[in-house]
């Protein structure tokens, strides 16, 4: 089809026909700009109030909690793209998150143990051979599971760049292979959700074994100590990671917004609503699902790699199927199908969860029974999930529609 300029003139001014599209991406999507501004302000306020770089109103442990929350917001974004936009209810994205954490944790643990071993062997009369050093590190790390040799998967643990590559590549490849098998077989809906849960469970059970090569149920620990930064206080390191998490969330938000705007976003929302119809339009639904599944798995891996150094420890319980279900609950409560909804949901619910389960919420004495929030929080969370799903499918994000409507009328 060819179009003359007179044709263009004919439709000039028709709304939606010839919308000016030359403006930069950020300008066309004001919500992205608002989000980035809020995130920048939040980062600034936390930094100013922190112990490491500011007046000390916010404790270091709370800075870590906030930094971890930002990582959870990032993985919630990924979940929103794969579920809220593309309609794939993956209940396995926290597995990719955990893998990212393990990948960076291996380097952190190796590098720090190496420093300790080299230091302790320095006093020996003969300078230690590389084999002795390696042996020493292995004994230190794997003594707890009764082993003293490096399993093959630790082959790259000495190298930060290679482990950083693993943060991206391992979740990406796992998602690619799993997704290829599942989508090619046209597994959809609840069956796909069950399959992703099975994947998560299998991974967690495997990691629980002592000979999995990742220290079984002990997991990896001491991750909050950066190698070579023994003299840097945690108050400073916590802010570094907070900044890194904020930067990752900002970039992740822009990337996800870019992905779900435009025609790609159109196609994946169409797949969510009627995938058979999309096939007859000539789009390979499987290829799109696989792309979205893999890209979001990589985002989840990056989020995990930033989360666990702040948490300090990772063990297989973190990959348990329930973690991925919580992720879906956050996104549902925040409002799926809109990116800021996912961020709000993850931040709100996870912070509230920290408050309730941290023993800070006052118990309610009903006389005959005392409600202890540590136990009852999950019940409350489950109930609110049911209520939101039934009564407010747009979640917390839906409130913004009400504000918008109020302004118009």
């Amino acid at each position, binding site marked *: *089809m060819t*179009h003359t300029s007179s*044709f*263009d003139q004919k*439709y000039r001014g*028709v*709304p*939606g*026909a*010839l*919308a000016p*599209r030359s403006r930069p991406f950020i300008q066309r999507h004001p919500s992205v700009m608002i989000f980035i501004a809020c995130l920048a302000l939040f980062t600034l306020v936390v930094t100013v109030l922190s112990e490491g770089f500011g007046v000390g109103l916010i404790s270091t442990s709370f800075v870590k909690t906030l930094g971890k929350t930002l990582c959870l917001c990032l993985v919630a974004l990924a979940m929103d793209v794969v579920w809220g936009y593309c309609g794939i209810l993956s209940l396995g994205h926290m597995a990719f998150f955990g893998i990212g954490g393990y990948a960076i944790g291996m380097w952190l643990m190796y590098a720090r143990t190496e420093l300790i071993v080299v230091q302790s062997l320095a006093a020996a009369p003969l300078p230690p051979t590389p084999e002795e050093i390696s042996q020493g590190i292995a004994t230190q790390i794997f003594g707890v599971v009764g082993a003293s040799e490096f399993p093959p998967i630790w082959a790259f643990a000495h190298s930060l760049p290679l482990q950083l590559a693993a943060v991206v590549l391992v979740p990406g490849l796992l998602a690619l292979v799993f997704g290829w098998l599942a989508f090619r077989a046209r597994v959809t809906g609840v069956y796909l959700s069950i399959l992703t849960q099975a994947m998560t469970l299998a991974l967690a059970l495997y990691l629980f074994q002592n000979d999995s090569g990742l220290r079984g149920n002990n997991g990896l620990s001491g991750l909050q100590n950066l190698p070579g930064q023994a003299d840097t206080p945690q108050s400073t390191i916590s802010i570094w990671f907070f900044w890194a998490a904020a930067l990752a969330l900002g970039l992740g938000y822009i990337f996800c917004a870019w*992905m779900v705007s*435009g*025609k*790609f976003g*159109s*196609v994946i*929302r*169409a797949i969510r*609503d*009627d995938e*058979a*119809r999309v*096939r*007859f*339009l*000539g*789009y*390979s*639904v499987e*290829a*799109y699902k696989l*792309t979205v599944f893999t890209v979001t798995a990589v985002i989840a891996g990056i989020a995990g790699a930033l989360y666990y150094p702040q948490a300090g420890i990772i063990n297989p319980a973190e990959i348990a199927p329930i973690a991925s279900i919580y992720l879906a609950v956050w996104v549902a409560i925040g409002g799926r199908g809109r990116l800021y909804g996912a961020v709000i949901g993850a931040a709100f619910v996870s912070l509230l969860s920290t408050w309730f389960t941290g023993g800070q919420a006052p118990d309610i004495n009903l006389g005959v029974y005392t409600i202890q929030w540590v136990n009852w929080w999950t019940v409350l969370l489950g109930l609110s999930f049911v209520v939101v799903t039934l009564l407010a499918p747009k979640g917390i994000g839906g409130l913004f529609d009400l504000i918008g409507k109020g302004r118009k009328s």
Partner: protein
Amino acid sequence: MSTLLEVSGVSKTFDGFRAINNLSFQIGEPELRAVIGPNGAGKTTFMDIVTGKTKPDEGRVIFGEKSVSLLKLSESQIAQAGIGRKFQRPTVFEDQSVADNLMMALKKDRSPWAVLRFRPRQRDHGAVAQLADEIGLVDHLTRRAGDLSHGQKQWLEIGMLLAQDPRLLLVDEPAAGMTPAEREHTTDILVQAAKTRAVVVVEHDMEFVRRLDCKVTVLHEGSVLAEGSLDHVTADEKVIEVYLGR
């Protein structure tokens, strides 16, 4: 006029029910063809087989000059090869605007990577506007497709098919639920489309078929009962017996 689609000796059985029974069918390019037949005659299954939704038990389905066998292709590959399909129930993406629906259907590279980088140019917006003009929706481009009337949704779906620029268009009961004025417009769109491509219209409504003024194929129990002009087939003894007489 050369043969575009050739279906020969195709059979399909569902749980012992022979939906398609040794069916043979040909259509040239350009051509307008109406397919009629009583319920259960195999009209929908025929479309499912051509578009790749259903694989037949036996037979051949050959498309284009290069004689590509459609049986080896997936639904999306068949669509890319140039076969568009309109369903009986209008299926547009209700959550998205009319312009977005048309933009998605526009004939472009369909691979995820190309679509991810795709940003519409002026001429793409122009193509969308022109299509919207043809289907009478140029003033509704920014509206949610779900807010359109039933007839408008049918047209939007036809517009999306035209946007794909297919060589063969399969249309299932396009006039269902339309007002007389809307039917007339639909007839115009289909007749116009059939000037440059092959269009197969499955229809129940004889009046609508008469207005299309084209060759008619009558299906019965999964195979072709009669073929020719509407007057010819309606005069056919067998057709009267199985379809019109009762």
